[in-house]
């Protein structure tokens, strides 16, 4: 075998401090009560930094700062706000190598993804919404739409900087100010973003970053002076947030879990479908809410397709996230690894057949080999529950109608994929799928101009595109 020598991206392009404070009103400060937590590199379990844990008084201070900043930020001409956003986008591009390495260190995702997917999309998102800032009157929400005020935003750990961009870019473009809480296991890129805000001379208080765990998020959501809550994360937490916001008059958007069907018809371009299945479930270790975690394959080609899929999976390279040739990096946390492991064991107990390619996993850190389950039925838990890891459940169908029925037979509805060479079939099936995003002959492709969001328990509201402005405008 032609083996590639190690090709590690240099860690020295990023300088991580030993401790970080909260970013409130344009300055980094420790938390009021001095509480901190550690963030680790999931590939090695090495502690990367200590980060302040925001309590209720810290959140109060952040919301106050955002409220004060709102007065002037919301009255700036859109063209002026755009300048800041363009500046932020450019700085992100300039610092993209540093940010990509940082993201891979704190999250565990392979450098080729943070470098080629996350960072370009982050910059693109800021560029895109910068363009809207002075054209809001033409966005279809009335001649003079107004910002809401202070947005409390809570983001997950799977795409830390990208989810930050999805939240902050439209909020600022529309004239809102924000208090954002990054995930507990991946706080660092948000703190580096805070530094970028200072570099861009963004007025203090327009962006505030409060790090912490679930409690910090709960304070933020419940804060009476927050006008808008935007959350991306689990359906369970999303429900709690919806409950606590109910009746308060706060606007809410939720982007929650998924159990997407990736439907492969017998006339699909097989080699490309295999690539789409692989990127659908193994991209970002399967830590993707819109991952194609249920493969629905037409029974007449199931054997052939699975043969090709397994062969392709045998070439996946699992290991050091900083190696440029790594395809699958580390699972983000011990807790997530435990959940993936548990659900996979349940899958095997329930009678599904488990398969992974041979692969050597590192001794330290959190790892899970790419895995597929065949012989899965709608009744299996691994076909119903979100695993959020590199685990694919394979089901079969006989007719297009059955494919649609099975695809929709889930409490979720975030995304779906269709693979066929027949254009008319793509259009017919896409119209019947209850999913916010339907990909045809591709999967897991993102663009800032395209709205993203879910049906049913996958949440409500849309992020991205013109639609994404609506959540931040009155």
């Amino acid at each position: 075998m032609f083996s590639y020598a190690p090709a590690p991206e240099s860690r020295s392009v990023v300088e991580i401090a030993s401790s970080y404070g909260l970013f409130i009103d344009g300055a980094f400060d420790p938390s009021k009560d001095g509480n901190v937590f550690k963030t680790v590199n999931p590939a090695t379990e090495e502690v990367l930094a200590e980060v302040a844990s925001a309590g209720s008084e810290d959140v109060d201070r952040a919301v106050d700062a955002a409220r004060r900043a709102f007065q002037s930020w919301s009255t700036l001409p859109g063209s002026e706000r755009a300048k800041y956003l363009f500046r932020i986008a450019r700085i992100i591009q300039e610092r993209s190598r540093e940010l990509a390495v940082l993201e891979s260190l704190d999250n565990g995702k392979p450098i080729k993804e943070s470098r080629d997917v996350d960072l370009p999309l982050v910059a693109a998102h800021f560029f895109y919404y910068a363009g809207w800032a002075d054209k809001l009157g033409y966005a279809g929400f009335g001649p003079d739409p107004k910002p809401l005020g202070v947005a409390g935003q809570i983001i997950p750990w799977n795409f830390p900087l990208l989810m930050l961009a999805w939240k902050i870019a439209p909020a600022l473009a529309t004239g809102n100010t924000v208090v954002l809480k990054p995930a507990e296991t991946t706080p660092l890129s948000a703190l580096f973003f805070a530094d970028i805000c200072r570099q861009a001379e963004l007025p203090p208080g327009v962006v505030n970053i409060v790090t912490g765990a679930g409690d910090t998020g709960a304070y933020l959501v419940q804060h009476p002076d927050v006008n808008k809550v935007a959350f991306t994360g689990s359906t369970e937490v999303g429900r709690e947030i919806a409950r606590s916001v109910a009746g308060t008059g706060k606007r809410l958007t939720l982007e929650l879990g998924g159990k997407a069907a990736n439907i492969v018809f017998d006339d699909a371009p097989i080699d490309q479908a295999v690539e789409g299945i692989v990127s659908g479930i193994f991209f970002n270790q399967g830590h993707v809410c819109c991952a194609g975690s249920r493969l629905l394959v037409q029974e007449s080609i199931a054997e052939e397709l699975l043969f090709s899929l397994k062969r392709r999976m045998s070439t996946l390279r699992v290991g050091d996230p900083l190696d440029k040739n790594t395809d699958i990096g580390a699972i983000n946390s011990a807790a997530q690894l435990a959940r993936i492991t548990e659900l996979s064991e349940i899958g095997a107990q329930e009678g599904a057949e488990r398969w992974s390619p041979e692969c050597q996993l590192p001794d330290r850190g959190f790892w899970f080999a790419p895995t597929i389950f065949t012989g899965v039925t709608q009744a299996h838990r691994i076909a119903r529950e979100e695993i959020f890891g590199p685990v694919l459940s394979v089901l079969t169908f006989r007719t297009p109608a059955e494919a649609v029925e099975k695809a929709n037979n889930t409490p979720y509805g975030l995304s779906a994929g269709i693979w066929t060479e027949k254009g008319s079939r793509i259009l017919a099936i896409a119209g019947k799928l209850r999913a916010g995003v339907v990909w045809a002959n591709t999967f897991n492709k993102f663009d800032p101009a395209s709205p993203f969001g879910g049906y049913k328990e996958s949440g409500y509201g849309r992020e991205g595109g013109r639609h994404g402005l609506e959540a931040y405008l009155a």
Partner: protein
Amino acid sequence: MTATASIGLSDLRSFLHGLPGVDKVGVESRAAALGTRSVKASAKASAIDLAIRMVDLTTLEGADTPGKVRALCAKGRRPDPADPSCPAVAAICVYPAMVPVAAAALAGSGVHLASVATAFPSGQAPLEVKLADTRAAVEAGADEIDMVISRGAFLAGEYNRVFDEIVAVKEASGAAHLKVILETGELATYDNVRRASWLAMLAGADFIKTSTGKVAVNATLPITLVMLEAVRDYRIAYNRQVGVKPAGGIKNTKDAIKYLVTINETVGDDWLSPDWFRFGASSLLNDLLMQRTRLTTGHYAGPDYFTLD
């Protein structure tokens, strides 16, 4: 014959049109992703030596003379006169008229001698002329024949005619290895590339080759990827291995390594050998040599330190 019996000539069209389609966006993005693999240090050194051993060092000009061909043969036998550890190329590829000269120059070297034939590059000649062209090249000492298919016939849907021509040329080639040039730049779509690959393999090709090097679009990574998928699937179906030769437009080491990566991750080890993969190229060799010297000495030498072809 290999597989024709099991398919039946009359079914050729339905067979070729029944092959899974190729999604253009998907295959191009897969090729681009393979192109991002980082091959450094020891991996790069062995990749460069392998690539040199896979080169079909080629001259196909109206201006080719015996002197030019002899110089090319000397270069192919010993690409880096300053370094005896540098391997020889796989073959020298010339026009039929130059085969006698090349045969003499390569005698005893182990370097193969390939000749284009069948009214290269257009293939627009009567079958008898093409067969005579082929026989002449083999008789003069070529042990590999690079034939062109009739793209006109293929595009007109006359698959049986293309098939029969390949069968006839294969027979005329005798013991020589037959490389079938699809001229993918003229076939235009990936679906056609896949169909033509299968057609050539079913007709008995030992190698399928992308291009003549004489049209606007020559070898590309996604086209080669589609052809590699075809030889992979063909071997599973018919238990016979067919080689692949991208030709034209592969000019530097970086590109060559992308091809090796694509072989590695599409068909694997079995094709990582000059017996099963070739680069049809001329200027590629000097870049490989330059990079090879850089890896051993730590610095780049100027072009004057590498011989002209």
